[in-house]
């Protein structure tokens, strides 16, 4: 899947943010000129650190916040002036927001009752929704009698029971423990595949975003830093923030000396000259940040095109691989993941060796 085939134009987007800006205090913009088109049936994740504006975007889409400027379109119609209860958007909240004074069945019945649906039809839909999340046996329980994971499933079923075309999820798995969270990620993903509903998902957990999403919009400082598929985002980050935020990353700063095609020659601050893939590094003479993934670094002699000296500072045994902290060009936090393969030489702390990488694995990005 390439980034091009996933692009959705503003004309045929199901949800469209058109030059949306948001300010709470009239002095600073929380969301700066947001342009985003989400296709029908897509699973799009808004990923970013707290305060990056992602939740504000979700709340504007749900109708609980109003955009200071710009239009939000749903199915081609601007919804800025439509109150939340007329938007028909399902929503899952961080703390689930299950009504504590109602049973599970009554919770699911609520959206159907306000739609004045007949009792028989309601019951049929409730059963189907609960069956979908495998919680049919809990129909008469109260939310307080359920575990976190079970409450999460009910919240999911409740957001889907009235069959909305769009479901928003605001860090729905944040309160669960790691194992359950990973399990629920797959369940939500499978539900999305089965129902074909459009999902806009907000999280600050990058592995969650990578696992579930069709596309990820990485937010920082009120701006989408990059909008791409998970593999693109990890392998082809377009700027230093994305490279740093998604996955582990070794950074080296330097000055661009020459650019030939898409290969940049960079002189590192330590004096060494290396080659890297020119992505977002500006012109010759400009500053740049080089980014390389720890698993793309090879340890030992005769390996890779960019060879340089390194000293082993620390080794952490992690079973399938050994995490090795090294000193490279004065950088003492250079991380290398050495696969625990039979033919790999064992490293020793204090050992002087060399590391190397392929030019296309090292990306020259903007200086930060």
């Amino acid at each position, binding site marked *: 899947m390439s980034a091009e085939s996933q692009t959705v134009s503003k004309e045929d987007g199901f949800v469209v943010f058109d030059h949306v800006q948001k300010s709470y205090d009239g002095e600073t913009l929380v969301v700066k000129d947001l342009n985003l088109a989400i296709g029908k049936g897509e699973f799009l994740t808004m990923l970013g650190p707290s305060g990056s504006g992602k939740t504000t975007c979700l709340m504007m889409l749900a109708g*609980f916040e109003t955009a200071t400027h710009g239009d939000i379109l749903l199915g081609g119609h601007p919804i800025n002036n439509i109150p939340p209860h007329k938007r028909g958007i399902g929503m899952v909240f961080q703390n689930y927001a299950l009504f504590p004074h109602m049973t599970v069945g009554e919770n699911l019945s609520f959206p159907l009752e306000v739609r004045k649906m007949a009792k028989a039809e309601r019951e049929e839909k409730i059963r189907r929704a609960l069956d979908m999340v495998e919680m049919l046996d809990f129909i008469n329980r109260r939310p307080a009698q359920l575990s976190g994971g079970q409450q999460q499933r009910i919240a999911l079923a409740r957001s889907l029971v009235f069959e909305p075309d769009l479901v928003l999820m605001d860090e729905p798995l944040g309160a669960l423990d790691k194992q359950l969270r990973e399990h629920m990620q797959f369940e939500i993903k499978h539900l999305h595949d089965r129902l074909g509903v459009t999902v806009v998902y907000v999280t600050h957990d990058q592995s969650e975003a990578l696992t579930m999403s069709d596309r990820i919009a990485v937010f920082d400082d009120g701006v989408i830093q990059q909008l791409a598929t998970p593999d693109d985002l990890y392998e082809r980050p377009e700027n230093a923030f994305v490279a740093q935020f998604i996955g582990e990353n070794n950074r080296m700063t330097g000055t661009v000396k020459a650019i030939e095609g898409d290969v940049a020659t960079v002189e590192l601050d330590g004096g060494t000259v290396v080659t890297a893939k020119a992505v977002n590094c500006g012109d010759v003479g400009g500053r740049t940040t080089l980014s390389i993934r720890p698993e793309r670094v090879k340890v030992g002699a005769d390996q890779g095109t960019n060879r340089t000296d390194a000293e082993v500072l620390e080794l952490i045994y992690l079973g399938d691989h050994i995490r090795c902290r090294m000193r490279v060009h004065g950088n003492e936090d250079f991380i290398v993941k050495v696969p625990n393969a039979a033919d790999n030489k064992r490293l020793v702390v204090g050992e002087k060796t060399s590391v190397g990488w392929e030019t296309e694995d090292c990306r020259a990005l903007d200086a930060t």
Partner: protein
Amino acid sequence: MSDATGPIVTADGVPLKRKLAQAMFRSRARAFGLALPLLAFIIVAFIIPILTLLYRGVHDPRFAQFMPRTTAIIQKWDTKSPVTEEMAAALVADMVVARKERTIGQVATRVNRELPGTRSLFTSTARKAKKMKPPYLEALIKKDRKWGDNATWQAIKITAKTYTPAYLLQAVDLKYNADGSITRQPERYRIYLKLLIRTMRISLIVTLATLVLGYPVAYLLSTLPVRTSNMLLILVLLPFWTSLLVRTTSWIAILQSEGVLNNLFVLFGITTDQQRFSMIYNETGVLIAMTHILLPFMILPLYSVMKTIPPSYVRAAKSMGARPATAFWRVYFPQSVPGIGAGALLVFILAIGYYITPALVGGEDGQMISNMIDFHMRKSLNWNLAAALGAVLLVVVLFFFWLYDRLVGIDNMKLG
């Protein structure tokens, strides 16, 4: 496992339960020790006085103590047959002693409560008792014809009881008769039930008024940013820091017929100078002043409960298609019920025993049961009836407490 049937023991063979109890004893003893001063204070300053007063409501030993002979002999009298010489002799003998020991006043007061007008009958007869010669009955009747009336002796028979239900019955407008029967009080003496009902009506109206006025304020407080809400909360609490007396009397200044409000009404032509509203020294004045004074007791529990309701509930309801009014009534309101219950119970129980405000602004028809208790404590000095009225009030409060527990559940109450 075979061990599962027998008691579990520790490694050295002591039953686990006993070992645990030993281990827990020290911490329990320390906890109890910490609570002991307060416990002792409550027992001395709260429980004992209440029990003593309640006891007074059914226990009145004065007549039996000071008139022992009469007491002994009148128990055998069937209240219908004519008064015997024996009874008269006992009475005269007792009166001689009582006059000498200056206890006849207390005895006369006691009997006077059962049969009004007997006070002077007792004191004046006692003055002559020493010189009376047998037959005593004739001597008594000669002194005053009332001694020939069975009603006088029936009153004596009632008062001779050390433990008597008479006060409690009087507190609910019932009369305990000498033959042990219970009848309603004569029409003109039925005042306490009417007063009790008025007290409950005023308390209910005040509770509803504080709820209607306080709910939106509490909601506003709970949704505002912390800095603003703290500021407003101080304004809500401000009345607490002002003397109750000052607040009540300032209502007099505002509400009286030449007061601020009436002057404004006249100024804006809502009423004429001759027909000023009477808003004070009546029930209206009591309602207005009490609602104002008790409002914080409603707002605070409501606020503390509402603060714990996350805004995401109403948002969730709206996202599911509920109109704002539906979202409020079906999602927000049910969750604020514990606060309503706590606030209403607090205000109602405080209101039902309210005293200063009705005393100051109540006038004739704004008096409540507490004012009557005060009257009997300080003016009529009928402490037994005051105690009985207090007991009735306590029972009413406990009844509403029970009712609340049945309807809302005491576990649901949240005060903060």
